[in-house]
């Protein structure tokens, strides 16, 4: 059942607060807590000298309403009215109108703005008018599908009552696999947890199927004949949390959707896509890249919003030389305490399951009543039983839970009502996710607050010291490359299994007929008549995992108590993380690798209790195969004004003579050893040598060439110059990760001496100093995925920004000679790394290679 409504979004808001405290009292409490945290410095925005580095006030917005668009079924309108929805917010009305009109639409509005009605209304309305119509909802997680199931069951039940009251409603029969009474509208989840014996009934009876991309890929599309009824009548495909589909996952999803639309064509349907996304820079572009259809964008929220105060907190430095700060967890505990003591309800986001448990324990110690009383502080993460999760969600909505500490499990659309405060322990990794989490606190009227507590990780430090990066810049672009050959070929196989390709058929941007010809060489397909027949016994979808980087994975086997598979790692990162003696971490638990069976792709690990982790030393060599674009003058005098800067698209025959370039590269890497790094202090406490096979791949890269003239002009010893380049690369990597909205392992970095002088030693660690002396060193940032995943070209386009932000990061760091936040820990690089890196950047700036900040 849904909670009763107080507005178009269907969220419960009134009532519970009245029980707890009056609105003025709540306002007072919030103001007092914020005053204390900012020490009265709210007037000074972005004050860089305090622990609070930013205090922004986001103004309130009034609601904007619109009437129900024509075509929304009167019964549905009636049900919504009974639940208090007299009219719609403008964004809801716009989205519903587009969807009913059969136009693909993507909606980006903040958390709790009534987004689900944007897709439920057109879907339910269409089914009420035509009971044969079907809809497919895709969620990135099973928990979200469950949450939506409850909401839809509630609506379906009300519709069935409504039909029972009315004179001539559509025929209603109660059914539901789980025995729950619902309307004649069948709503079911279909995922890996669905019992085998229920699946047939679901295929036949579901009007709305709630599933996930993985299940669609391996469980539904290959068996499409059994789903003929769904595909014949498929009117809507809903993709919730669209922003989750970026990088490899998104590129896979784009191909799954190509296959879906291909199957729909076979059965004569052409569904309308309704997508919802958190705020990202390019929602329409992402939707269009994933679905390959033109989209309408609805981005102006009509939902009301109260004023919100947003604070950035950087824990104080306790060891300036090593750049060590006070633990951000202790800091989070202190800040959460300020709100809790004033009776405010809050959510605390932690970055891992382990930190979630730690913070839960801290807050329980501080605020939990005597044993036996109601639990006011709760933890929440994946792995908790659904029953417990529902109980916590309910406690939050009703106000009996004062604080919840959660992983990103509560970041997505689970309904927990409107809380007073959100405290984030650590930067969530992207601007989009940060806004999403901050949105969990907030109300239609009255103030709320969000606090970001930075950890000492480099990206955290960058963001907390450059609040403008977060507040004033656009959020990240979500990038996908559906035509990455590796991904494309995998899905062409799946598609060929599902329906034979015809000789005239198109699929994706590349020539699919050429792909099929190559697959025919491997005897997977064969041309027969005018079609490509699948001629293999295999079931190709089983070999393709949408979420992992490659289907050729290492599995991690825990031998502590028998042989349990506890994780898997992509082929490319396997050697670096699973070499012998490596420390492997799962949810804070530590394991040591005892044996790596490289050919069998298995790592055998055992639980261990230690205070260090390992960092592999990888020698990586990048060879340029073909530069696509180059810019920036490099060969000339770096000081000369107005150096010719060719526009994008121009080609230079010699990539070494340009500062920026991107193109196709060959990467070979070998793990040659590892270091033991102590937790918290990041001290180097030991090392070892390894001998593992070399790995090779073709991918794409962006690279920076530091002109020989720049190198030659540096007044430092060769070793120091080398340190400067290493430090520069280290810092560039952090910034690239921020700009690309990608995970750390999505990109790799490598340095070389430029040219043939130093063939063997290009390395993340270090080429020899001599090699850098009189040549032009290059810093490569490559897509750590065979074929590339589309990061390099955007990075090339952001070249000036990349270097300017890198300079900002290094220059703004408070450490003396380098730390993990800027150019790398001191042990990694020499004492002058920071200085030299800055000097190089300054010279490049003169050459016009940096954007003016």
């Amino acid at each position, binding site marked *: 059942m849904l909670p009763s409504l107080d507005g178009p979004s269907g969220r419960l808001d009134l009532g519970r607060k009245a029980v707890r405290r009056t609105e003025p009292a709540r306002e007072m409490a919030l103001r007092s807590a914020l005053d204390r945290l900012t020490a009265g410095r709210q007037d000074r925005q972005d004050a860089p000298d305090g622990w609070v580095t930013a205090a922004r006030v986001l103004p309130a917005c009034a609601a904007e309403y619109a009437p129900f668009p024509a075509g929304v079924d009167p019964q549905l309108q009636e049900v919504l009215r009974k639940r208090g929805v007299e009219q719609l917010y403008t964004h809801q009305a716009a989205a519903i109108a587009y969807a009913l009109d059969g136009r693909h639409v993507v909606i980006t509005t903040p958390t709790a703005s009534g987004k689900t009605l944007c897709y439920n209304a057109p879907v339910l309305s269409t089914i009420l008018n035509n009971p044969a119509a079907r809809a497919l909802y895709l969620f990135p997680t099973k928990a979200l599908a469950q949450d939506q199931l409850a909401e839809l069951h509630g609506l379906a039940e009300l519709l069935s009552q409504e039909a029972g009251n009315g004179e001539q409603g559509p025929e209603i029969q109660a059914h539901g696999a789980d025995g729950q009474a619902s309307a004649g509208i069948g709503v079911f989840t279909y995922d890996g947890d669905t019992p085998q014996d229920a699946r047939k009934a679901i295929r036949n009876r579901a009007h709305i199927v709630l599933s996930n991309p993985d299940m669609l890929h391996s469980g539904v599309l*290959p*068996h*499409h*004949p*059994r789903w*003929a009824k769904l595909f*014949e009548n498929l009117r809507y495909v809903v993709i919730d949390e669209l922003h989750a589909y970026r990088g490899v996952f998104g590129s896979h999803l784009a191909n799954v959707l190509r296959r879906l639309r291909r199957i729909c064509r076979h*059965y004569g349907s052409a569904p309308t896509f309704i997508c919802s996304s958190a705020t990202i820079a390019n929602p329409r572009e992402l939707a269009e890249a994933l679905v390959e259809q033109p989209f309408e964008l609805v981005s102006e929220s009509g939902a009301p919003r109260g004023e919100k105060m947003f604070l950035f907190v950087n824990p104080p430095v306790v060891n300036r030389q090593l750049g060590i700060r006070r633990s951000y967890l202790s800091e989070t505990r202190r800040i959460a305490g300020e709100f809790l003591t004033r009776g405010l309800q809050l959510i605390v986001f932690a970055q891992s399951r382990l930190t979630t448990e730690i913070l839960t324990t801290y807050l329980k110690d501080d605020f939990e009543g005597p044993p036996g009383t109601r639990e006011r502080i709760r933890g929440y993460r994946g792995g908790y039983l659904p029953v417990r999760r529902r109980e916590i969600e309910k406690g939050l909505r009703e106000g009996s839970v004062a604080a919840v500490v959660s992983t990103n499990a509560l970041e997505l659309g689970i309904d927990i009502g409107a809380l007073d405060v959100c405290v984030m322990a650590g930067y969530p990794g992207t601007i989009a996710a940060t806004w999403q989490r901050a949105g969990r606190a907030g109300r239609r009227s009255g103030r709320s607050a969000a606090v970001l507590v930075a950890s000492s990780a480099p990206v955290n430090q960058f963001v907390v010291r450059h609040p403008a990066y977060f507040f004033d810049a656009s959020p990240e672009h979500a990038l996908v490359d559906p035509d990455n*050959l*590796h991904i494309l*070929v995998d899905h062409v196989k799946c598609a*060929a*299994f*599902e*329906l*034979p390709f015809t*000789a005239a058929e198109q699929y994706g941007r*590349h*020539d699919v007929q*050429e*792909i099929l*010809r*190559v*697959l*025919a*060489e*491997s*005897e997977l397909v*064969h*041309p*027969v*008549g*005018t*079609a490509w*027949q*699948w*001629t*293999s*016994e*295999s*079931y*190709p979808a089983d070999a393709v995992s949408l979420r992992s980087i490659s289907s050729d994975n290492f599995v991690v086997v825990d031998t502590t108590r028998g042989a349990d598979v506890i994780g898997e790692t992509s082929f490319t990162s396997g050697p670096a993380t699973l070499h012998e003696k490596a420390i492997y971490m799962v949810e804070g638990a530590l394991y040591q690798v005892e044996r790596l069976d490289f050919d069998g792709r298995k790592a055998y690990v055992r639980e261990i209790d230690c205070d260090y982790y390992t960092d592999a030393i990888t020698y990586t060599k990048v060879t340029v*195969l073909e530069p696509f674009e180059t810019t920036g003058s490099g060969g000339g005098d770096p000081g000369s004004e107005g150096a010719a800067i060719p526009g994008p698209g121009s080609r230079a025959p010699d990539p070494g003579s340009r500062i920026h370039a991107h193109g196709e590269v060959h990467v070979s890497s070998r793990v040659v050893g590892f270091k033991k790094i102590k937790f918290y202090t990041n001290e180097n406490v030991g090392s070892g040598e390894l001998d593992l096979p070399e790995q090779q791949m*073709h991918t794409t890269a962006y690279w920076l060439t530091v002109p020989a003239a720049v190198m030659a002009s540096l007044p430092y010893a060769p070793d120091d110059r080398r340190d400067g380049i290493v430090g520069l690369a280290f810092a560039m990597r952090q910034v690239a990760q921020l700009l690309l909205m990608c995970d750390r392992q999505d990109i790799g970095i490598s340095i070389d001496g430029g040219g043939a002088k130093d063939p063997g030693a290009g390395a993340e660690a270090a080429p020899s100093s001599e090699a850098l002396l009189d040549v032009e060193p290059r810093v490569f940032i490559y897509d750590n995925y*065979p*074929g590339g995943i589309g990061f390099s070209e955007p990075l090339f386009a952001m070249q000036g920004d990349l270097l300017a932000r890198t300079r900002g990061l290094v220059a703004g760091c408070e450490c003396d000679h380098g730390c993990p936040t800027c150019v790398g820990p001191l042990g990694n690089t020499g004492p002058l790394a920071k200085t030299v890196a800055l000097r190089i950047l300054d010279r490049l700036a003169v050459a016009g290679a940096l954007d003016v900040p």
Partner: protein
Amino acid sequence: MNLAERLRNVVRPAGSPAVTPLPPPGFPSSADAESAAEVLGGQWREWRDDRYLVVDRRYPPGHRHGRVAVADSAPDASGAWPALGILDPRVAGEVSPERANKGADGRVVFLDLETTGLSGGAGTYAFLVGCGWFDAGTFQVRQFLLTGCAAERGLLEAVGETVAGAGAIATYNGKTFDLPIMQTRFLLHRMAAPFEGLPHVDLLHPARRLWKPEEAGLTAVDAAVLGHVRENDVPGFEIPSRYFRYVRSGDPAPLQAVLEHNRLDLLSLAMLTSRIARLLEHGPDAAATAREALGLGRLYERRGMLAEARACFVRAAGSGLPGGATADEMLTRAEALRASALLYRRTRAHEAAAERWQRLLDLPACPPHLAREAREALAVHYEHRLRDFRSARRLAVESLQVSSTAVRVHATQHRLARLDRKLNPAPASFF
């Protein structure tokens, strides 16, 4: 690098095996080379711009399959075996008027598929659909060979026509394999599956009951029951690759053995169906072995034909049937006694049940798990019905001597203690 080279790197990253040369430009029609009809002994059927192959074979009444001749197996003139109704009443029921209108009679059509894989899903094709039926004392086989996926719809239409006249179909493991595959193929082409609502006998389950339970493959049952030993039979796992070879090369030779394998399967299926129908019709006297009698009894029992079932168990438990005193035979007799006892108990004939349990215990080599069950049943009988506590106690002591698990020891001790209290109602704890 051009696209094809890059693709080759993706498809075969390292240590690439031998490369099949690129097919010549355009789409060759090698797969439906003329020779297929000749080599496989069939006829092309045109369907739109494509075609598929139909192979017909007649096995005359005198054709022998192992120990059995086709004529011996043929049903009566109606083409049906009423006794199969014992397996599934719908099989012996009247042909529905709707089907009768379409020309259906009571005839049983045997169905066996050869497929391009076992995984199921839209990419698993039934490249060979074999159908068989009795026609006036002869056995008729019709095989539909898919030479290219484009003709599949036409092929399925023809299969539908062949099945349309049937009163029932019979398969071996068709419930889980052949029919779902067919269903998928028909659904894919948006055609109504002809098997919908058609009575279906899956021989796998009765065959498991009647014959060797551990070797339930059709070929093995075929040899054991009908005495038909296949020579040069193509193993099942090889079948998809032979088909793929044909599709790629156009050379139909590898398919000859596959078609023959399918025909033999259909013949076996028909002969075994006939054998089962005969057993069901004639009862225990028709059983050739104790195992068959026991299995037959269980088939009757499932249908509630308890008198027939009992007669079968009696025959299986007796020593009148061949087989001597092998361990296998003794096990069958013991199981028959157990089945008898359970059947008597079900009808509340407890005395008769107890007698069977006792005979089971008296067998020279009674398997331990059956002996345990018999002892427990008898102990209950003595204690609760006859109130013969001494006999019950004797059985319990015996049980204790052979009990191996703690749970059983505990249960038996519990029983002993209770029996001791019943035997000595007065307090007896002076020691």
